[in-house]
Structures are given as C-alpha cells and as structure tokens.
C-alpha cells in the first residue's frame, strides 16, 4: 500500500480521492493500519474504531460513485479525543474508572463530521478527565504518559496528547481535541502541529465530557491552518443541545495571497521563555513583518490566572462532585489527581460569582484591545516539552510568572491557533499562537495560513514508521 498518504494535508488527500488515485476505503485501511500499529508507541490510541470506520468509508465511497460529494472532508479519516462520545465504542475520558463507559449517541461534532463524509478511525488518548484534577506530570491516564513523536522520551503535551501525537506522527490526517485551559494549544506546540481553539460558543460541546461548562471548547488539530479551517467549517454552528452555541456562520476561505494584515504582538509574552523559544518567536516576527503591520499590545492588568482557576475549580468541583466525594477519585492514575480535587469542593459560591462578574469586565476589555487586529501573537508555550518522567514544575514557569495570555484568552473565550515555528531544546518543536477577538477564526486562520505560506516548519515531520 502506498506510504505517501501520511503527512498529506486535507486538500491533497481530497484531490487524490476525486482524481481516483485512492478510494476512501483504501485510505481508511491505510490509516487504520498506521494508527493501530504505531499509535501504541506514543500511548496515543485508546480504541481503534475499525468497524465503524470501514462502514463510514464504504458509505463515503458509495456516495461519491453516486455523485453525492459532501466536500473536502468526504472520505478523509480522522481521530477524536476520547472525551467525545461515539456510539458503539467506549468513551473513557482517559480515566480508569470510566474505561467501560459507553454512550449510545454521537457527540455533535462527531455527527457533523460524519455528515461531512469524514471517517472516524480511532478514539485518541487524553490526560484523565482532561487534566482537570490537577496533574503535575505526564503519567496521568490509564493509557500512560503521552509520548512525543519527535522523541518518545519527552511528553506530547496535554490534555489532548493523543490528537497531538497522532497528527504529528501522520497516524491520522487530522483530529479533534478539546481545550479548557491550554489543552489544544499545548500539545499542538509540543508536537509541532497546527491546532485551533475556537471561540467559546462556536462549536457545540454536546457529547463531550464537561470539565468546566463556561471554559470548555472543541477544536481541530491538523498539519496546517488550512486543515483547521476546513474542519472548523464542518463542526461549527448552533446546536439546540448546547445552549451556549451561537448562530454565526463560519465559512473558511483562503486569504488573498497579497493580503496585508495588522497584527498585535503581546508585550512581554516571551519573557521567561526558554532562549530557543524566544529566538524562534523573534524569527517569526521577522517573517510576519514581511506581510503584516506589527504593533505592541499590552494586556490589561487584570487577574486572569485567578479568574481562570477560580472558575475552572468551582465548575469542575461541581461536575465531578459525586465522583470526588464517593472516593472513586482514588482510582485515577496520577497520585496527585487522587487528592487535589478535594480542594475544588470548597470554593465559596461568592468567590465563583465574583470571578464571573469580573470576567465580564475582562472579556469586554480584551475584545476592545484585540479588535483592531487581525491577530495578536505570542509564543504558544514558553518551553518545549519536558521529559515523560518530569514534573512540570521543574521546567515550566509558574502560571503566575509573566504575561497571563493563556488564561486571558480562555477566560474570554477567544479563538487561537498554534502553528509550528521552529525547534528548541532536544530538537523538540516550538509554536507561535495567533489569537483574535471572539468569532474571528477566519482572520486568525488567514494570518496563520499566510505565515505557513512563507515558512516550512509545518512540513517537518518526525521519523516515524
């Protein structure tokens, strides 16, 4: 079977399907084999959805033969983080106590991808309970620590570690991840892939494990910003099953090649970064300066980390109250996940409500600040990935150090995309993040796409299989 299907962007695979060079069933068999054979090496795979995949691929093929073309994703295989319900298969949330859990329905995003003709080939690993119990090191899921395809002695990031590893290793063309606070951006940066966190409300969360009702987002991870735009178009839109979704049409269109953009650079965003991360960010700014007007942007002095933590802990404490108080939390893999959640049970309601009230002010300020720009940029992460045995606190600056860009974006529900921008310590990838005002995915994807037209970091792939 031809090996050149791995590491191909969605448009190229779609072109090969249309030209008759490959059939959806053939493509699906290829990625089922590749994911099943190589996924375990990175602890990236939870369940291979073989029967469903072959059925969906056969339907996609029959539709194409009958002249029913559902678009670019028609016949394209993908993986989904195992927080997302898929009928017929376990949905484990990465947690031992939920290994046998099943839902008899598809999450809205899974259903929408099926309707777009995409083929689910696997449920991909996640840090247990989306990392919401306070893990401090990579071995925090029954599937083991996520291993980085660039060097399996290093972490793949979390909590969407399976999607990050699987896309980076070419085991799936794209994947769905989720982010409450950093869980798409981090593995995208650490694994050197492109990952989009949509605006809160852009994509239905129905059928996804709730961790924090007002912070959770679902988004695509792929090889390029273009891939992310294609997938977002398929999964975005209002859903009666998720009352936080908003009826704002999203149609991904490639920007004009000679378009110029206005880009804000978060002041001080590279402070506390590893030297290589800062160096790569500076190099990215030089590339951006070729087609963007760059201006410094200073975040308002608001307690973004405190807001994000208070909201997350209060909501997660409520979501998992019964799980924590029953003592089943002791069955989790990471030792710290077995006791840290008890602190969530005693967040006073008044503190939570104060955070929500302050959040509203913060959201207004941040949107006003970002509104003039097509995108606002910062390093995706301040470090490359650490070792799979390494406590995060030994190499990541504390969240309270430096500019709280990640907390600010997530508190305000703003979209962001991380794309690779070089390599740092141990030959591991680094990333640059493009953020924008709410519902400006088209603009930030446009800038990221233009950046990728002028760089080749997204064309580097680890030596896999």
């Amino acid at each position, binding site marked *: 079977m031809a090996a050149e299907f791995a590491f191909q962007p969605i448009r190229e695979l779609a072109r090969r399907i249309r030209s008759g060079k490959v059939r959806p069933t053939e493509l699906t068999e290829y990625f089922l084999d590749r994911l099943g054979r190589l996924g375990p090496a990175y602890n990236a795979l939870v369940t291979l959805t073989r029967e469903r995949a072959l059925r969906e691929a056969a339907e996609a093929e029959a539709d194409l033969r009958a002249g029913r073309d559902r678009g670019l994703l028609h016949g394209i295989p993908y993986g989904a983080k195992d927080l997302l319900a898929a009928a017929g298969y376990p949905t484990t949330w990465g947690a031992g106590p939920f290994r046998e859990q099943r839902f008899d329905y598809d999450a809205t995003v899974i259903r929408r991808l099926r309707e777009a003709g995409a083929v689910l080939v696997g449920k991909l690993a996640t840090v247990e309970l989306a990392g919401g119990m*306070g893990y401090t090191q990579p071995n925090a899921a029954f599937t083991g620590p996520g291993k980085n395809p660039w060097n399996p002695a290093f972490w793949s990031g979390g909590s969407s570690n399976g999607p990050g590893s699987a896309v980076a290793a070419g085991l799936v063309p794209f994947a769905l991840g989720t982010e409450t606070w950093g869980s798409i951006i981090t593995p995208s940066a650490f694994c050197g892939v492109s990952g989009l966190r949509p605006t809160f409300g852009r994509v239905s969360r129905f059928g996804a494990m709730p961790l924090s009702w007002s912070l959770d987002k679902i988004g695509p991870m792929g090889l390029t910003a273009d891939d992310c735009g294609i997938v977002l178009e398929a999964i975005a839109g209002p859903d009666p099953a998720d009352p936080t979704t908003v009826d704002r049409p999203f149609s991904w269109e490639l920007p004009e090649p000679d378009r110029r953009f206005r880009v804000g650079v978060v002041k001080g965003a590279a402070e506390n970064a590893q030297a290589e991360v800062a160096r790569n960010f500076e190099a990215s700014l030089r590339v951006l300066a070729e087609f963007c007007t760059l201006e410094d942007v200073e975040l308002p002095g*608001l307690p973004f980390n405190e807001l994000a*933590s*208070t909201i997350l802990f209060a909501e997660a404490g409520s979501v998992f109250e019964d799980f924590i108080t029953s003592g089943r939390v002791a069955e989790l893999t990471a030792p710290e996940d077995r*006791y840290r959640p008890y602190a969530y049970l*005693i967040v*006073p309601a008044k503190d939570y*409500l104060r955070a929500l009230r302050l959040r*509203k002010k913060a959201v207004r300020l941040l949107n006003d600040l970002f509104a003039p720009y097509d995108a606002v940029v910062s390093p995706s992460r301040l470090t490359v990935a650490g070792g799979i045995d390494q406590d995060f606190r030994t190499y990541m600056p504390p969240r309270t150090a430096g500019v709280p860009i990640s907390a600010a974006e997530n508190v305000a529900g703003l979209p962001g995309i991380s794309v690779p921008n070089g390599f740092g310590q141990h030959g591991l990838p680094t990333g640059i993040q493009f953020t924008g005002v709410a519902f400006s995915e088209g603009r930030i994807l446009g800038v990221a796409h233009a950046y990728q037209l002028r760089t080749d970091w997204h064309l580097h792939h680890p030596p896999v299989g």
Partner: protein
Amino acid sequence: MTEPLPDPNFQVEQLLALLKATFPDRIRPEDEADLRARLQSSADRAAELRCHRLDFTDEPDVVFRAIPDGG
C-alpha cells in the same frame, strides 16, 4: 474595594482540617503539604479577586434561559 482576607493561613488550616474530617483516610500525610499549598493558592486567588472593584450593575454571565411558552 474590599480588603483581602485578614488571615488566609488560618482559613487554610481550618479548611484542611475540615476536609480530613469529612473524608477520613482519603488524604495521605505525604499529600497534606501539597493540598495545603493548593488551599493557600485558593485563598490567595480569592483575596486577589476581592481587590478588584465591582458595583451593583456588574452581573455575571449565566447560562440560564427561561423556557418560552412553557417549552
């Protein structure tokens, strides 16, 4: 502007004791220091949030929506 908690350490010790009493044998002695630090962080966060002014018009965003026409 409201003043931060006068003695967050006292609060933390009370809360830790409450958790240990409510959930006996769940929190191992070797985990107490880390949990205490987490509780301290929560107290510090709450104090920080209280330093930022709010007035009566600052309502939170909530998800609740009344069902029109009885659903």
